[in-house]
């Protein structure tokens, strides 16, 4: 092996070899941080909701006629809508709910465990009906979900509750306590009560109205501010108002969701034309929610690929230059008996050494850059695997890029050495 001559050459041409090393180091640092950003975005995108997202649709019905101001008219229409939706072939399950998965928010409230002091806890809170478990496609792990009579009863109780003012006691809380049955996500039950069983447990809100768990399901994830994506409580209520209309989640038989969009809109509008009906696929809502992440994956991927190409070409350029500069020496070596393989090996070894120095520096630089990004922009944290993958990639890139000029060098004829001396 020609370690001696290689080391001496490198020492004499610090600038040129240094250039390759710096390029490799910087490229490694940037590529690895691109990959980290991509990986972080992908982790976010890979988090499942736990629902049958691909077969779910959301239906929004919003009235524009004064007739809908009357509660009885609305409730009646809502029941007809539910029957209409359930009767559509290809519809597996339907629920009336204000919950829209992957919307990036929703509604929430704060609660305390009854009889326990301490800061109140925040959970998402939505209405649902007896279609809850089957429509979301989640598993009931404790207790039971709502049945039709529960929903009818609770809807009526809530209607009465909101129909008149509530007299309040000296502590500001209403005098008559209201008890609401809820079906909750497992993560929320765990947060509030530690280990189960949870059925029968009580929570209260700031008005000291109480919420009693009748069932627990998993999984549940709906991204929300304040990190409450895993926490959810559903209460039985058929919800409709003049301003917000009424919303439904529809679970289609596998593969039929997209085809049902038109059918659903048509069927509902046929029931009552004095409203607009908007149908959207939950998979589209999710894609929209992850739009920025998908953009990062594509754009950072593009940057990483371009960078590898540019650096590869750069190494080809510098190595070519080194080869051209040493044409005479190569000819001399060839004339003195060096084989073509010797010449290729020489240049590849030289390049490997320089690339390795670059990679060593690059790993440090990558970590430094990552720390800088983390502190300044809360960038993505670097994983060891990513760094190793990046290092291997650049080793291959270095060797691959040096191979072309090295082969050219090997083809140098020994006769060149004797010319123009």
């Amino acid at each position, binding site marked *: 092996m020609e370690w001696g001559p290689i080391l001496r050459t490198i020492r004499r041409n610090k*600038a040129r070899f240094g250039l390759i090393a710096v390029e490799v180091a910087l490229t490694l640092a940037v590529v690895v941080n691109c990959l980290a950003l991509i990986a972080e975005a992908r982790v976010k995108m890979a988090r499942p909701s736990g629902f049958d997202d691909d077969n779910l649709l959301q239906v929004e019905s919003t009235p524009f006629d004064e007739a809908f101001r009357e509660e009885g008219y609305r409730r009646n229409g809502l029941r007809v809508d539910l029957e209409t939706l359930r009767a559509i072939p290809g519809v597996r399950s339907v629920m009336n709910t204000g919950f829209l998965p992957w919307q990036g928010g929703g509604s929430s409230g704060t609660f305390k465990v009854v009889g326990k002091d301490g800061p109140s806890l925040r959970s998402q809170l939505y209405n649902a009906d007896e279609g809850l478990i089957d429509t979301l496609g989640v598993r009931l792990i404790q207790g039971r979900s709502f049945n039709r009579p529960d929903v009818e009863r609770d809807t009526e109780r809530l209607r009465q509750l909101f129909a008149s003012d509530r007299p309040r006691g000296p502590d500001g809380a209403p005098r008559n306590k209201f008890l609401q049955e809820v079906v909750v996500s497992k993560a929320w039950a765990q947060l509030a009560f530690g280990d189960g069983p949870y059925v029968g447990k009580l929570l209260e809100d700031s008005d000291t109205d109480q919420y009693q768990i009748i069932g627990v399901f998993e999984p549940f994830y709906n991204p929300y501010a304040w990190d409450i994506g895993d926490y959810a409580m559903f209460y039985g209520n058929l919800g409709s108002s003049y301003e917000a209309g009424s919303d439904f989640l529809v679970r289609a038989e596998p593969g039929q969701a997209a085809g049902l969009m038109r059918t659903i809109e048509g069927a509902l509008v046929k029931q009552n034309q004095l409203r607009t009906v908007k149908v959207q696929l939950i998979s589209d809502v999710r894609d929209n929610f992850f739009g920025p992440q998908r953009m990062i994956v594509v754009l950072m991927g593009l940057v990483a690929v371009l960078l590898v190409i*540019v650096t590869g070409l750069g190494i080809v350029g510098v190595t070519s230059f080194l080869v051209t500069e040493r044409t005479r020496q190569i000819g001399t070596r060839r004339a003195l008996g060096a084989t073509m393989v010797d010449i290729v090996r020489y240049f590849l070894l030289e390049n490997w050494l320089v690339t390795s120095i670059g990679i060593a520096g690059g790993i440090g630089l990558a970590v430094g850059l990552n720390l800088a990004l983390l502190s300044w922009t809360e960038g993505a944290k670097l994983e060891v695997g990513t760094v190793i993958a990046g290092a291997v990639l650049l080793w291959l890139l270095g060797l691959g890029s040096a191979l072309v000029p090295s082969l050219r060098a090997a083809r140098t004829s020994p006769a060149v050495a004797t010319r123009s001396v």
Partner: protein
Amino acid sequence: MLAYQLRIAWKSLMRNPGHSLIVAGGIALGVAVSTLFATVRHSFAKDPIPEKSDSLYYVRMDSWGPHEGYPGDTISPQVTYQDMNGLMRSDIPVRQSGMFKAQLYVFPDAKIGRPQREIVRLCFADFFGMFDVPFKYGSAWDEKADKGPEPVVVLSEEMNERLFGGENSVGRSVRIENRHFRVVGVLDRWRPGIKFYDLTQAQVQAPEPVYIPFEFVRAMELRTAGNSDGWKSPDQRGFAGFLASETTWIQFWVELPTAQHLERYRAFVDAYTLEQRKGGRFQRPLDNRVTSIPDLMKELNIVPKEANATMVVSLLFLLICSLNLIGLLLGKLLARGSEIGVRRAMGARRLDVFMQHILECELVALAGGAVGLLLALGGIEAVNLWTKTMFQRDDFFRIDWTMAGFAAVAALVAGLVAGAYPAFRVCRIAPAVHLKSQ
């Protein structure tokens, strides 16, 4: 002298156009990528209304309950209806407006289409003056219309296009929900960067298509289509209960032209809060915030963290592009050794040779920068198309003059990075060596 140097540079570049093209291409690529990401960040970060950034203030107060504050160690981003009314009694601001958005049905002429739910902003007449909103036809409504409230409406250019085919519709009537509103103004194209006057949701959306006087909130019993946060359920039922409640759902802005106004106004808000405290409200430590737009943007982290990280990465990309060109430019040195030897022998100083080479590089860099800027323009359009479904807006990301300047500076710096070392090497060529071997 410069003309002579330019001519030499041109000849030198044209001697090997392929080589020059590669160098220009490398810089174009670097400039395109860095300008693209810098523009993405800039579109969030730039001051949306620079002429007014030291006179517009957003008002918040900590009206939360005595036991627990607003989640996340901050205060509610909006104010209650009762506090808006309390604050608006002040005559210190030269202009002021509470505002919110609602989703309301707008009924076009039956020939044009079915009614559609539109986002409508409810605000006071001062809204248009304080935010320098441009009018194409007509004008804002007046304070009398605020008090009435009179059924008047201002339409965006796009909404006027849809409802009235773009003609001057001032004086015509538009049905919103079950009422008829008279058009008093049509906006000219109004596209501030972020929707600064309402940063609670969808900050990159375009301004609303329809504006009506705030007080219709009572007459039409409207609820916000934006966020509402509260800590206590209303004491009374129904709409009156909602208005009188501790729920915060209104964005409140004031225009305070001088530092004295600001100081007096802050004192006023504190005094108002202390007065309310006597009635049992505002039991938390005094925390009122009267915040300028730049400070508000910082506090709310308007620039996404990813935009910062990707911009840093793209600048490093540019640096690597120009580092890679060093090798190429060094290669050129070999071919030109003899020519430079002759120039040096004829009396050119080292500095002359150095500057000559830098000039050459910067010429190529500028050409590359121009191409890079064009590529970035194309890239931004692609990004805009892509984000249209996300933001319902296809012109959020824009390359303005600041970004064009950024591209030019980026190109020049890249040219310098690529060219400085080769130029340094070139000017140190000893004339004798090259003259000998000819």
